[in-house]
C-alpha cells in the first residue's frame, strides 16, 4: 500500500508500523514514531495497523537549541 514516510511517498508491503520500519531498514534503529500526527510508542508499533495514505513520521536525535 502507499503511505507517506517522512514526507515521501513509499509503497510498502507491511501491514503494521513495526513491519514498515523493518521494511524501511529501520527495524533496529533508535527512532521515535508518530502516525498521522499521534505518537506511537516503540512497544505499540507491531499492534498499530497501517492504512493506505497514512502519514508515518520517523524521528531521531538532532542538534537543538
Amino acid at each position, binding site marked *: 500500500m502507499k503511505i507517506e514516510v517522512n514526507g515521501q511517498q513509499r509503497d510498502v508491503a507491511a501491514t503494521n508500523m513495526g513491519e514498515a520500519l523493518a521494511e524501511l531498514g*529501520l527495524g533496529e534503529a*533508535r527512532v521515535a514514531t508518530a502516525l498521522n*500526527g499521534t505518537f506511537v510508542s516503540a512497544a505499540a508499533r507491531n499492534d498499530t495497523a497501517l492504512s493506505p495514505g497514512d502519514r508515518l513520521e*520517523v*524521528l*531521531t*536525535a538532532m*542538534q*537543538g*537549541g
Partner: protein
Amino acid sequence: MRDFYGETLKTPMMLGTARFPSPSEMEAAFRESGASVATVSLRRERGAGQAFWNIVRSLGVHLLPNTAGCHSAREAITTAQMAREYFQTDWIKLEVIGNADTLQPDPFGLAEAAEVLCADGFKVFPYTTEDQVLAARLVDAGCRVLMPWGAPIGSGMGLNNIHGLRTLRAAFPDVAMVIDAGLGLPSHAAQAMELGYDAILLNTAVAEADDPAAMARAFAQAAQAGALAAASGPMGVRDMAVPSTPLIGKAWL
C-alpha cells in the same frame, strides 16, 4: 541554586547543541563551560541520529529535548511524547511558536500544551515571554520552571525588557527561572543572573563565536559572577551622587 524539578544543577548554564562548526567543538564548549544541561531536538531520520545520540550521551549532562519549530499545541504535545521515549527523560523544553519572524511564543498554544503535558507527568520547561499573566497560567498548569526570553531567538540582543524580567522574577520567587534566548554577550548572562534568575540557556552566541569553547567559558564565568552578585545583595540605585570618601576629617584648605 534553586532546584529544577528536584535536580540541583552544578552550574547555572544550559547550552544548546546546534550550529557548532563540528561535534568536537561542541564537546569542547561543554567541557570549557561546565554547562549542566544540553538542549537537543528530534528531526526526521536521515542516518545521522545514532551518532549524535552517542555524542550527547557522552557529555554527561542532563538532556533537555525541545519542541522547536512546533506551531501548535498538538504538534508540541506529540513531539514531547516522542522525545520522552527517545531521550528517556520527562524533561521537555516546550516551545509553541506563534510568529515565524520573531519566533515569539504563542501564549495560547503554550498554555494549552503545558496543561496537557504537566497532567501527563512531563516536567515542563516552557519557553515563554516576560508576560506575568501567562506565567501564572503556566505555574497553575504545573510548571515549576519558567524560561522567559531575553530577546528573540538567535538575535543576540540581550535582555530587551529589564523591567518586565525583574517584575516576573519578583512575582514568582519560588519558581526556578531561566533566561532563554537572545543572549549575545557574556555581560547579558551576568545581567540575567544579577536580576536573580537561576540559570541561562543559550546556543547561537557560543556556537557562532570564532572560538566557541572560549566563548562558552566566558559565558559560564559571567553567569557565575552574576549569581554571586545576586547572592551578595547589590546596592540600590540612587538618583544623586553620594561621595564614597568620608567628608569627616577633610582638611580646610
